[in-house]
C-alpha cells in the first residue's frame, strides 16, 4: 500500500474495528520495496564491475540526502540551501579526522560521526534561531549565503582542508579497501564491499527513521504548518519548535549521508561536497521524485545519477556523428546545461514530480469511488 494518508483514512473511517485487529498483509508495493533492497544487496555479486557498484552506492547515499532534504522542503515547507553544506560537514569531519590522525582506528569513525552530529545540530539550531522567525524567503537567503561561505572556507582554509586539492585518506579496520576476507560467489569480500553494505544498511535504517518521523504525529503537524501556519498556532501548536525539530533532524541525516559519501570515495574536496551544483542536484532530485513524498527521493536520485554517468558519453558519441562541428562539440561538452533546462521545466510544468503525480491521480480515484458509494447509498 502506498504511504498514502487517503487510504489509511478510508480504512479508519469505514472499518474502525477491522483495521485494529488486522495484521497488515504484505501488499504488492511492500514486496516491490523489499525486492529493491534485496537487489541492492545482490548487486556486488551479480555485477562484478566496480562502475555499477559505484553508481548503486551513490544512488543510496543521495536517496538518503534527498529524503532528508524532502523532510524540510516537502513536509515542512522550508527551503534550506545549506543542506548541501551539512552534507559537506559530514564528509569533511570524517576526512579530516582520518587524515590528521597518525594511525586511525575504528573509533575514529565514531568520533567523526559524533563531531559531525554536534556541528550539524549546533549550526542548524543557530540558523533556525536567526532566521526562522522572520520569513521563509529570508531563511533561504541566509542559508544560501552560509553555504557559499562554507565553500569559500573549504577552498581558502588550506592549512586545515588542503584547499582545492582536497584530502584523500584511507579507512581503518575492516573498512580498509585492502582488507580481504575471502571470496563468495566469485566475488572478493573486501573492505570496499563492507563499506557498500554499511551504506546499504545505514541508508535503510535512516530512511526508515525519516519515514517514521513524517508519519508520526509530529510529521502531521509539520504538514499542517506548511499548509497554514496561523491556523496551526490557533490549534495550539508551537510551530517554531516543530520547524526546529525538522531542520535539526534533516540536517543531521544529511551530514551522516556526507560521512557515507566520504567513506565511499576516500576523498573529499570543496567542489565535490560544498559546491552549489551539489545543492542544485539535490533540488532536482527532490523535484523529479516529487516533493513531500519521501519515496520519490529514490526515483530522483536514481534518475539523476544514472543519467549523469551515461549522458556525457551519449552526447559525445552523438556529437561524433556530426563531424567537424565545433558548436555541437561544445554543446555536447556542456551536458549539465540539459540538467538545468530539465530543472526549469520540471519546476514549471511537473511540480508534483513522478510520485506526487501518481499519488494525486490515485487519491482522485479514491475520492471518486467514495462519492459513487455515497450516491448509491
Amino acid at each position, binding site marked *: 500500500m502506498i504511504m498514502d494518508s*487517503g487510504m489509511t483514512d478510508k480504512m479508519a473511517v469505514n472499518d474502525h474495528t477491522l483495521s485494529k485487529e488486522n495484521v497488515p498483509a504484505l501488499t504488492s508495493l511492500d514486496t516491490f520495496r523489499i525486492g529493491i533492497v534485496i537487489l541492492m544487496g545482490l548487486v556486488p555479486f551479480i555485477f562484478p564491475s566496480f562502475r555499477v557498484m559505484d553508481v548503486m552506492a551513490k544512488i543510496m547515499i543521495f536517496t538518503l540526502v534527498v529524503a532528508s532534504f524532502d523532510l524540510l522542503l516537502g513536509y515542512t515547507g522550508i527551503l534550506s540551501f545549506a543542506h548541501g553544506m551539512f552534507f559537506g560537514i559530514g564528509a569533511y569531519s570524517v576526512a579530516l579526522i582520518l587524515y590528521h590522525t597518525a594511525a586511525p582506528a575504528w573509533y575514529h569513525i565514531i568520533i567523526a560521526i559524533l563531531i559531525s552530529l554536534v556541528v550539524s545540530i549546533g549550526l542548524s539550531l543557530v540558523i533556525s534561531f536567526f532566521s526562522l522567525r522572520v520569513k521563509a524567503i529570508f531563511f533561504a537567503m541566509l542559508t544560501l549565503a552560509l553555504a557559499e561561505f562554507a565553500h569559500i572556507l573549504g577552498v581558502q582554509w588550506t592549512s586545515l582542508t588542503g584547499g582545492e586539492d582536497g584530502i584523500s585518506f584511507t579507512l581503518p579496520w575492516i573498512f580498509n579497501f585492502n582488507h580481504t576476507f575471502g571470496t563468495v560467489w566469485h566475488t572478493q569480500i573486501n573492505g570496499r564491499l563492507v563499506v557498500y553494505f554499511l551504506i546499504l544498511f545505514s541508508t535503510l535504517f535512516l530512511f526508515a527513521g525519516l519515514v517514521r518521523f513524517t508519519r508520526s504525529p509530529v510529521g*502531521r503537524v509539520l504538514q499542517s504548518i506548511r499548509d497554514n501556519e496561523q*491556523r496551526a498556532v*490557533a*490549534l495550539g501548536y508551537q510551530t517554531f519548535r516543530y520547524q526546529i525539530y525538522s531542520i535539526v533532524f534533516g540536517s543531521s541525516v544529511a551530514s551522516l549521508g556526507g560521512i557515507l559519501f566520504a567513506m565511499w570515495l576516500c576523498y573529499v574536496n570543496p567542489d565535490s561536497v560544498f559546491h552549489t551544483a551539489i545543492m542544485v542536484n539535490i533540488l532536482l532530485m527532490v523535484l523529479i521524485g516529487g516533493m513531500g513524498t519521501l519515496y520519490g527521493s529514490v526515483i530522483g536520485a536514481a534518475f539523476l545519477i544514472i543519467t549523469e554517468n551515461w549522458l556525457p558519453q551519449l552526447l559525445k558519441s552523438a556529437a561524433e556523428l556530426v563531424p567537424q562541428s565545433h558548436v555541437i562539440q561544445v554543446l555536447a561538452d556542456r551536458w549539465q546545461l540539459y540538467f538545468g533546462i530539465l530543472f526549469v521545466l520540471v519546476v514549471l510544468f511537473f511540480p508534483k514530480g513522478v510520485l506526487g503525480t501518481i499519488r494525486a491521480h490515485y487519491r482522485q480515484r479514491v*475520492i471518486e469511488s467514495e462519492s459513487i458509494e455515497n450516491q448509491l447509498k
Partner: protein
Amino acid sequence: MTMTPAIETRNLSIQFGGHVAVDCLDIQVDPFCLKSIIGPNGAGKTTLFNLISGQYQPTQGQVLFNGKDITRMSAAKRAQLGIGRSFQLTNIFSSLTVLENVRLAIQSRQQIGMVFWKDFSKYPELEEAAYDCLQQVRLQDKTLHEASVLTHGEQRKLEIAILLALDPSVLLLDEPTAGMSLEDVPAILEIIQDIKSQQNRTILLVEHKFDMIMALSDSIAVLQEGRIICDDTPEAVSGNPVVMEAYLGGGVKHE
C-alpha cells in the same frame, strides 16, 4: 452569588499607529453563556477577538480566563488552555483532507503533538473522535476530500468542527455565516444552537444577522469605536434607542 467570569477583560486597549482600535474596554462573559458582540464595522469586534485569543498583544490592560491573567500568554498556549476561535475569513488547512483537519485539532488537545517515534495510525481513537466531530456538523460524507474542494458553506462547517475538536471551554465565533448564501445559514444556526444546548461551553459570537443574534444570545454587548456602549439582555438592547441609532441607523429592518 458572583461567578468568576469565563472571560474578562480589564481596561483593555490596543493602538495601531495612532488609531485606538480598542479603548479601555471592560467586558465579562459568564460561564456557559452565549454573549454576542455587535456594532458597526470598525468598532473593534475582530480586534477584541484577536486580543482574547492572543493574535494581538494589547498596549495596556488585562485579559483574564477563569480569573487567571493570560495577557502575556502566546496564542498557542491559550488554545491549549481552552480558548478556541474561528476566523472571519475561512481559515483551514486547504491541502489536507477534511478528516486530517479535524484530527490535527484532536491531536493538539490530547498533547501528543511531540511524539515522533510512533506511527500516526497507532492512534485510531483520534480518527474516531474526528469522525464524531464531523458528524456533528454533518460533514461525515466528505472526510476524504481535500478541504479546498469544499463549498464555502462546507468550509465554514469544517471550521466549526475543528473548533469542536479542540474541545475548548470558550468558543470565539467570528461571523460564522459571513459570505454564506441564505439557504446555508439555518444549518449553521442549528449547529450553534446544538453546542449551546449542551450547556458546557461559553460562546462569544460576532455576527451581523440581527435576527440570529436575538434568537441565540443570552446577552448582547454593543461596541462602538472600541468602547462598549451597552451590555444587556437582547430585549433591553433592542429596546435601547441609543443602540438602535448607532447600529441599525434608525429604522429597524427585519428581513
